[in-house]
């Protein structure tokens, strides 16, 4: 059987032509793929493999087309001549394809490795970026904290610190040893607290950073840092201000306790002094001018007078010495005192007074504030034995909440600030902490009572103000007195003129006093000067007397504090029955128990114990002669 050959020829020609076309097509695809990512080794490889296969295809197809052409055109000899070249080319491309083919997997693995490397690099970069971002986030959080924070590794090297830490220790740097940065040491601290963190014991302790003279609390914990390292983290809290306030608070608590004690003692002393002074006066009246006893009794009287002054100072310190409040202008008060202060300080000390131009009104007891000024100036004078300058200034200040943090007793609002500063020897911290305590003095025995600054403290506190003290040894001391600014209507304060001691004309006085010695002397003083006295030792007894002799009583003279009530209660009850009854109150101290505010509100006449004969008679006379309501 003979099979036609033309199918072979046509399949060869058409197939070769199409193969030629597809060969170029494949190169085109492979080239496009390669161009998309030229650094991809696998794509490059596949391009070359495709080229080698396409080369074979093109070579073969071209050869076959040429062959058919030559055979068809009777050029068999030409084909015979070039046929080996075509065959060799095909063979060479087979080898080439083989070479590429067996490396397909190898190149793919190289590509995978490169991809993996790229992924690993990308992951490492992402991790690094994440760590950086995390650190930035943590830094921003840590920088927002008002405590100083730092991290150290186990070699004591500082790895991180926040903004506050830099503010606290400007010299700190990364990689610096913590013992250098914090304690200026050359070797780790013997009692390094970080060692304990390894066994899970966190620490918190208070210490002083001598480099910056600050008291701090340091808390330490062990943690894993953003770079996965185990590190030591320490938080430093500046407690300098807190400690200072605590000390101030303790000091004021101590002064409060001492004041309470002093007030109680002063009250009892006043009763005793009332008797001593009263009897001295009575005895003195009974003695003629030639009597030798007059000098002795005079000494008793003067000693009792000095004791009374001391007791008044104690009461002032304990804030139980109520003064008569009046609205005054501070600048005017200091101006009026200038001459007196000049005489006090002596010639080798100069005084520089700078007063505010505005009127600074305060509602105070002028006498007590004068005493404050005098005591502070005297204190400054005594601090400058070799002379110097004392600066006094006044100004209006607005105290805000921030300023209040500086002093436990400070309150926000408008205040008059009186500053008294000297260039004296100054005081150390221990002295500063005790200077307001009563009877604490650095002066020689007999030269100071130790009550001057205690009285200042008590008076200022009593006036709802406070006093700040700053002092440095060798540089001087500054007192800042804050008094509430008065913004109400100014009222003029008038002082009554003294005159001769008035005597009684048989007026009947109901004396209510629970202290027998006081009652006895008061009765003597009144009866020996023209008055008739009926007595009662308690509220109940007084009510009995008053019920019995209501119409014949001309004056109720009562102690404030009674065992079963108060003088105020008596005044209320008696005036309910007899509204025109004159009343005089008396007490050894003025505290809440004594209802001082009620006395002031009712405008009741008051006589402070211990009272002299003159003071008693003048008070009684004034009350009896004042117009009846």
């Amino acid at each position, binding site marked *: 059987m003979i099979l036609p050959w033309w199918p072979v020829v046509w399949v060869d020609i058409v*197939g070769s032509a*199409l193969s030629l076309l*597809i060969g170029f097509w494949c190169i085109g695809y492979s080239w496009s793929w390669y161009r998309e990512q030229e650094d991809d080794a696998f794509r490059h490889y596949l391009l070359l493999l495709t080229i*080698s296969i396409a080369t074979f295809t093109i070579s073969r197809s071209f050869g076959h087309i040429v062959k058919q052409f030559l055979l068809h055109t009777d050029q068999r000899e030409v084909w015979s001549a070039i046929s080996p070249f075509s065959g060799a080319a095909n063979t060479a491309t087979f*080898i080439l394809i083989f070479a590429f083919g067996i490396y397909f997997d190898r190149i793919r693995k190289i590509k995978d490795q490169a991809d993996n490397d790229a992924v690993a690099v990308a992951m490492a970069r992402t991790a690094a970026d994440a760590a950086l971002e995390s650190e930035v986030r943590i830094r921003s959080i840590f920088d927002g904290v008002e405590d100083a924070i730092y991290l150290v590794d186990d070699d004591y090297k500082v790895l991180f610190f926040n903004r506050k830490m830099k503010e606290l220790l400007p010299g700190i740097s990364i990689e610096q040893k913590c013992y250098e940065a914090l304690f200026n040491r050359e070797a780790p601290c013997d009692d390094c607290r970080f060692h304990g963190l390894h066994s899970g014991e966190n620490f918190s302790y208070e210490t002083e950073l001598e480099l910056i003279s600050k008291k701090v609390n340091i808390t330490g914990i062990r943690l894993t840092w953003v770079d996965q390292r185990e590190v030591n983290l320490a938080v430093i809290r500046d407690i300098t201000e807190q400690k200072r306030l605590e000390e101030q608070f303790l000091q004021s608590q101590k002064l409060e306790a001492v004041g309470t004690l002093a007030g109680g003692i002063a009250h009892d002393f006043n009763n005793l002094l009332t008797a001593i002074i009263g009897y001295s006066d009575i005895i003195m009246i009974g003695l003629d001018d030639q009597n030798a006893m007059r000098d002795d009794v005079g000494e008793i009287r003067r000693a009792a007078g000095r004791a009374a002054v001391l007791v008044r100072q104690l009461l002032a310190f304990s804030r139980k010495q109520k003064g008569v409040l009046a609205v005054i202008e501070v600048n005017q008060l200091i101006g009026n005192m200038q001459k007196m202060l000049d005489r006090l300080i002596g010639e080798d000390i100069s005084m520089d007074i700078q007063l505010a131009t505005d009127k600074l009104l305060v509602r105070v007891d002028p006498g007590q504030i004068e005493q404050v000024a005098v005591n502070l100036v005297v204190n400054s004078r005594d601090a400058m034995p070799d002379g110097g300058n004392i600066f006094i200034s006044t100004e209006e200040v607005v105290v805000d909440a921030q300023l209040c943090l500086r002093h436990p007793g400070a309150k926000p609002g408008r205040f008059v600030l009186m500053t008294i500063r000297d260039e004296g020897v100054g005081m150390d911290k221990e002295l500063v902490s005790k200077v307001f305590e009563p009877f604490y003095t650095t002066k020689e025995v007999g030269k100071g009572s130790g009550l001057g600054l205690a009285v200042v403290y008590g008076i200022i506190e009593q006036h709802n103000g406070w006093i700040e003290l700053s002092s440095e040894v060798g540089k001087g001391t500054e007192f800042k007195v804050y008094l509430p600014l008065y913004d109400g209507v100014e009222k003029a304060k008038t002082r009554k003129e003294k005159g001769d001691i008035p005597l009684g004309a048989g007026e009947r006085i109901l004396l209510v006093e629970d202290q027998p010695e006081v009652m006895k002397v008061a009765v003597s003083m009144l009866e020996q000067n023209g008055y008739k006295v009926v007595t009662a030792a308690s509220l109940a007894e007084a009510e009995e007397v008053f019920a019995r002799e209501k119409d014949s009583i001309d004056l109720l003279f009562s102690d404030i504090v009674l065992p079963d009530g108060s003088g105020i209660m008596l005044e209320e009850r008696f005036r309910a029955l007899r509204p025109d009854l004159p009343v005089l109150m008396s007490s050894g101290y003025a505290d809440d128990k004594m209802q001082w505010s009620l006395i002031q509100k009712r405008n009741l006449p008051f006589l402070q114990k211990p009272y002299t004969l003159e003071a008693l008679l003048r008070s009684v006379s004034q009350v009896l002669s004042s117009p009846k309501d």
Partner: protein
Amino acid sequence: MLSRKHFNLILSIIVLVPLFLSWADPAYAVQAHGGKEGLISHQLGHILFAGCMLFLLVTGSVNRWSGGGWDRFKCFIRLIIFWNILTFSGHWLRTGILDDKFVKLNGHVVGFRVESLLDVYYYCANLDHLILLPALLCLSVSLRKWVTSDGEDKL
């Protein structure tokens, strides 16, 4: 590891030098390689071609390569292996077929005298483009798939 630049250079040399040599004048050769040597070299080329394609197929199966591009590439490999076998055997059979089996008219072959199954097989082997063409189509389609669906294939 080779840098990409060096790698590309080596690949280019591997491709271009054999190409250059394959087209070079035989006068450059120091030894003549005619007659059966040429046929045997060519047949060895077919074996290497088929062998490396088989190696690729096995490697792909072992490594579980997958994806549309690879599936078409596998098809190409199978067809090209088959084509290599067909043409290899065609070349081999040609050595045993006498010229008088070819019916000629005016010096041109117009028919082939078939007297056995081997003659039929030889006749079919001369129609190898019927296999080669689909193989090349599969190759182009697989390349197109790789171009258009980059990254989907898992190789």
